[in-house]
C-alpha cells in the first residue's frame, strides 16, 4: 500500500479517457446508481477547457459515511485509453485495480503495483449493437469487481434510457451484465478486498453546489436571472432556464456581465429578486455595478464561483483567489456582505440568506463559491422546506403611503438610527423618489453638501454594524487549548475535516474554523480560537495567502499564522493538509 487508509466502508473509483467520449456519463450513471443504494458519494471531474479531445476523468468516492473531499488515493481505475493509465496510476495503491478496454492494448504504468484487468468494453458493446455502450460495459465490470448485484442498476438504467424505449434499456442492462460476467471470469471471481459494506438504502439528494445555489435562489423567490455564461457558474443559469418558466420567471443571457449586474439591479430596484452569477473575469466587469448597488442601497446578490485567475487563468481549475477583489473591489466605501458557504447544504441555505440580507440591509451581497464546491457532485441530506425563511426588511408592499400634497419625494434615504431606510418600489402610489449613484439627500436628489455627505455616508456605513448572521464561523473546536487551529473557507472543509483525525491520532490537539462570513469579518468569533491555539494554519487555494492576510489584519497574531497554499489548479487532498500541518511541529 502506498499511503492512504484502506477502508472497506469506502472506495475510490475513477474513469478516464478522451473528453467527448462519454466519460462523464459513465461516472454519472455509476454514481447515481450508488447513490440510490444509499451510499454517500463525492464526485470530482477533471476537465480541460477543450470540449472534445484532451484527457478527462471523473473521480468518484463511494462511502457509507458522509464525504466532502477528493480522496487521497484510488482503488479502481477504469481506462478507456493508455493516457488514462499513464496519468492516473500513481494514485492507485498496491491493492488497487485497473480495468481497461482491450481495444487499445493497455499496458501497466511502470510505477504501479496495482493489477491490470483487460475487458473488451468496446467489443462487447459493438456486438450488442453500438460501441457507444462501452461505458455500460465498464460499469458492469465495476459491479463485478465490487460484488454488487447488477440488477440493482436496472432502475437507474430504466430512468436514464426509459424514454428511448424498452429495447434500449434491455440492451444497456445486457451490456452491464456482460461486463460483470467478463470481469468475474477474468479475475477468477470477486476480488475480496474491494467488497463494500452495505449502505443504508436511504434516498438522498445527489447534486453539485451550483444546483444547490440555483435551487436556493428559486426557493428564495428569485424570478429573474440575467447572466453571461462562464465556467464554473453556468450550471446555475442552466438550472434556472429550465425551472423559472414554471414560475412565471425567466433568464436573460445578457451581452456581458455589466449588463447582467445592472439588469439585476434594475429588477431588484423594482422589487423582484434577481440573481446573477459569474466567475472572476465577470466579477471584474461587475465592480462598478457593485458600487452602484452600494450607494443606491439597492439589494443585489452576485454569486462568484471562483476559478484559477488572474485574467482567463485556469478557467476549469480550482482556486480561491478572488477574496480580496470581492471584499475591496469597487471604488469608494460601501457596505457589502460577502458570504462563503462551505458545503452544498450551506450553499442552498446561504443563497436564501443572501437574498434576505440583501433586502434587509439594502446592500450588495456576494456569495463566494469555488470550482470544487460548485462542480463537485455529492450526496446531500434532503433539503428542508421548513428552514426556508423569506425576510424583506423594510420593504412593505402592502403599505399605504400617505400623500404629501406637494411634489416632495418619498424619503427613500431617510437617516435612521440603524442606517436602514424605508423602501418602496416603482408603481407604488405616493412613493415617488429619485435614485442616483451620485451622492444624494434623503429623497434621492443629488447633493454635494458636506453635511449631507457626512450623514448619508455614516448612515450607509453603520447599516452593517448590527449585522445578524447565523454562524459566521463554522467551528469544530473541542479543545480549550489547541496545538493547532486550522482555518479555511469554502470547499477546503472536507479535506481539513479528514486531516484532523489523522493529526489527532498523532497526538496533536486540533481545532477547526471554516469561515462562512468573509465580510464584515467575524473577528470577535475567531479571536478566542486564534488566541487559544499555539499555531494557526490557514489552508487556501491561492498564491498569496489572501485569507491568512485577512485574519492577520482583523485578528492579529501574525507570528503564529502559517500559510498552507495550493494553486496548481487541483483541490487539496486530505493527506496534503495532514502533511503540511505535521511539518509545523
Amino acid at each position, binding site marked *: 500500500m502506498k499511503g492512504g487508509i484502506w477502508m472497506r466502508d469506502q472506495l475510490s473509483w475513477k474513469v478516464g479517457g478522451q473528453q467527448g467520449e462519454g466519460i462523464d456519463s459513465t461516472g454519472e450513471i455509476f454514481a447515481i446508481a450508488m447513490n440510490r443504494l444509499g451510499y454517500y458519494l463525492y464526485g470530482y471531474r477533471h476537465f480541460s477547457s477543450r470540449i472534445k479531445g484532451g484527457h478527462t476523468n471523473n473521480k468518484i468516492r463511494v462511502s457509507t459515511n458522509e464525504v466532502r473531499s477528493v480522496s487521497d488515493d484510488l482503488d479502481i481505475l477504469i481506462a478507456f485509453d493508455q493516457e488514462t493509465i499513464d496519468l492516473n496510476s500513481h494514485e492507485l495503491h498496491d491493492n488497487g485495480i485497473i480495468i481497461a478496454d482491450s481495444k487499445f492494448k493497455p499496458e501497466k504504468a511502470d510505477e504501479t503495483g496495482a493489477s491490470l484487468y483487460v475487458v473488451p468494453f468496446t467489443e462487447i458493446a459493438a456486438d450488442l449493437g453500438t460501441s457507444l455502450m462501452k461505458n455500460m460495459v465498464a460499469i458492469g465490470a465495476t459491479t463485478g469487481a465490487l460484488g454488487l448485484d447488477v440488477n440493482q442498476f436496472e432502475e437507474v438504467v430504466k430512468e436514464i434510457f426509459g424514454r428511448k424505449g424498452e429495447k434500449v434499456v434491455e440492451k444497456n442492462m445486457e451490456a452491464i451484465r456482460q461486463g460483470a460476467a467478463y470481469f468475474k471470469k477474468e479475475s477468477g471471481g470477486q476480488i475480496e478486498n474491494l467488497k463494500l459494506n452495505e449502505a443504508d438504502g436511504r434516498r438522498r439528494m445527489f447534486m453539485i453546489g451550483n444546483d444547490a445555489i440555483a435551487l436556493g435562489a428559486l426557493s428564495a423567490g428569485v424570478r429573474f436571472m440575467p447572466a453571461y455564461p462562464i465556467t464554473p457558474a453556468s450550471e446555475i443559469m442552466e438550472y434556472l432556464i429550465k425551472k423559472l418558466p414554471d414560475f412565471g420567471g425567466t433568464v436573460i443571457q445578457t451581452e456581458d456581465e455589466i449588463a447582467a449586474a*445592472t439588469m439585476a439591479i434594475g429588477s431588484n430596484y423594482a422589487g423582484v429578486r434577481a440573481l446573477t452569477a459569474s466567475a472572476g473575469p465577470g466579477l471584474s466587469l461587475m465592480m462598478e455595478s457593485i458600487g452602484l448597488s452600494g450607494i443606491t442601497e439597492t439589494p443585489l446578490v452576485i454569486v462568484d464561483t471562483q476559478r484559477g485567475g488572474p485574467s482567463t487563468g485556469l478557467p476549469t481549475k480550482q482556486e480561491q483567489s478572488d477574496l480580496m477583489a470581492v471584499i475591496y473591489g469597487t471604488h469608494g466605501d460601501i457596505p457589502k456582505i460577502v458570504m462563503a458557504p462551505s458545503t452544498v447544504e450551506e450553499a442552498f441555505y446561504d443563497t436564501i440568506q443572501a437574498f434576505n440580507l440583501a433586502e434587509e440591509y439594502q446592500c450588495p451581497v456576494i456569495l463566494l463559491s469555488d470550482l470544487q464546491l460548485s462542480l463537485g457532485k455529492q450526496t446531500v441530506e434532503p433539503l428542508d422546506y421548513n428552514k426556508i425563511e423569506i425576510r424583506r426588511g423594510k420593504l412593505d408592499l402592502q403599505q399605504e403611503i400617505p400623500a404629501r400634497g406637494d411634489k416632495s419625494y418619498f424619503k427613500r434615504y431617510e437617516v435612521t438610527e440603524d442606517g436602514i431606510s424605508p423602501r418602496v418600489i416603482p408603481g407604488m402610489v405616493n412613493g415617488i423618489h429619485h435614485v442616483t449613484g451620485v451622492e444624494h439627500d434623503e429623497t434621492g436628489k443629488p447633493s454635494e453638501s458636506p453635511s449631507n455627505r457626512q450623514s448619508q455616508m455614516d448612515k450607509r456605513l453603520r447599516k452593517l454594524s448590527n449585522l445578524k448572521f447565523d454562524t459566521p464561523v463554522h467551528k469544530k473546536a473541542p479543545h480549550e487549548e489547541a496545538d493547532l487551529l486550522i482555518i479555511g473557507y469554502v470547499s477546503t472543509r472536507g479535506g481539513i475535516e479528514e486531516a484532523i483525525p489523522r493529526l489527532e491520532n498523532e497526538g496533536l490537539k486540533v481545532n477547526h474554523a471554516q469561515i462562512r462570513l468573509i465580510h464584515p469579518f467575524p473577528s470577535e468569533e475567531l479571536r478566542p480560537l486564534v488566541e487559544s491555539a499555539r499555531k494557526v494554519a490557514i489552508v487556501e487555494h491561492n498564491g498569496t495567502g489572501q485569507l491568512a492576510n485577512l485574519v492577520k489584519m482583523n485578528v492579529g497574531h501574525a507570528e503564529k499564522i502559517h500559510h498552507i497554499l495550493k494553486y496548481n489548479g487541483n483541490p487539496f487532498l486530505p493527506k496534503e493538509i495532514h502533511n503540511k500541518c505535521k511539518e509545523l511541529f
Partner: protein
Amino acid sequence: MATFKDFRNNVKPNWCPGCGDFSVQAAIQRASANVGLEPEQLAVISGIGCSGRISGYIQSYGFHGIHGRSLPIAQGVKMANRDLTVIASGGDGDGFAIGMGHTIHAMKRNIDITYIVMDNQIYGLTKGQTSPTSAEGFTTKSTPSGSVESPLSIMEMALATGCGFVAQGFSTDLKDLVSLIEQGINHKGFSFINVFSPCVTFNKVNTYDWFKEHLVNLNEIVGYDTSNRGMAMQTIIEHNGLVKGLIYKDDKKKSYQEAAHGYSDKPLTGTDLKLPEEKFNELVAEFM
C-alpha cells in the same frame, strides 16, 4: 387623469440656459400625460452625462445609474414589472460609446421600453470631447486638430439590429417630438428615438440653426413608407442620417415579453416568494 404638469417636479435643472435637453424633458412630460399615465406608473432610467440628469427632473420614479448602463437597468425594471412604463435615456456618449453593446442588444432583445437619446455630438458633462456621432474634422478638446474618425451612422445601425421602432427628433420641434415619444411608448417592443439636442456650450457647429438648415422632414418626402426597411435605410444614407420623424416601424414583431416562454403576463412583483411545499418537494426529488 394626470396632465403634463403632474410630471413636473420641483427640481430646477442644472442644464445651461438654451440646452436642447430642456425640450426633451418637456416632451417626455407631455407624452406621458397624453398616453394616460399617472406619475407613479412611469420609471425614467438614465445614464451619466448632462442628459443623464433627466431622471431627476421628471415627477416619476427615476433611477440615475452609471455611465452607459441605463438600458440594462431599464430592462431589469421592465422584466420585474411589465405594467410600468419604462423610459431609458442618456447622451450620445452614454449610449453609443461606453454603452453601445447594450444599445445594440437592447434593440435586438426587444423588451418593451422606450429609449430616448439626447444626441449633441459631444460630451457635455466632461466639458467638450468628441463623441461617436461627432463629424469628421470636428475639433474638440480631445481632437484639437480635428477628429480623424468618421461618425457612426446611428440610424443605419438601429435598422441593422432589427429594431422595431426607429425615430429621430429635433428638440425644438416639441409637437413632433411629443408625438414620436407617444408612439414609442405605445409601440409593443423596444422603441428608439434619437433626438438632436444641441449643446450650446461646447458644440458650436451643430447648432439649432445648423440642424434647421440640414434636417429633412420625412413627412415631406412623398411616398415615404415607415414599414419599408429598405426604403428607410436608403433614405438615411441619402440624407446622411439628417432626417427627422418616424423612420421605421414593425408592428408585427413580438416583444421579448410576448415571446419569452413561460414569462408571466402579470408583474413579477406580485409573486409570492415562498414556493408551495409540494412544488419544493418535487424539485428536491429530482435530485434523488
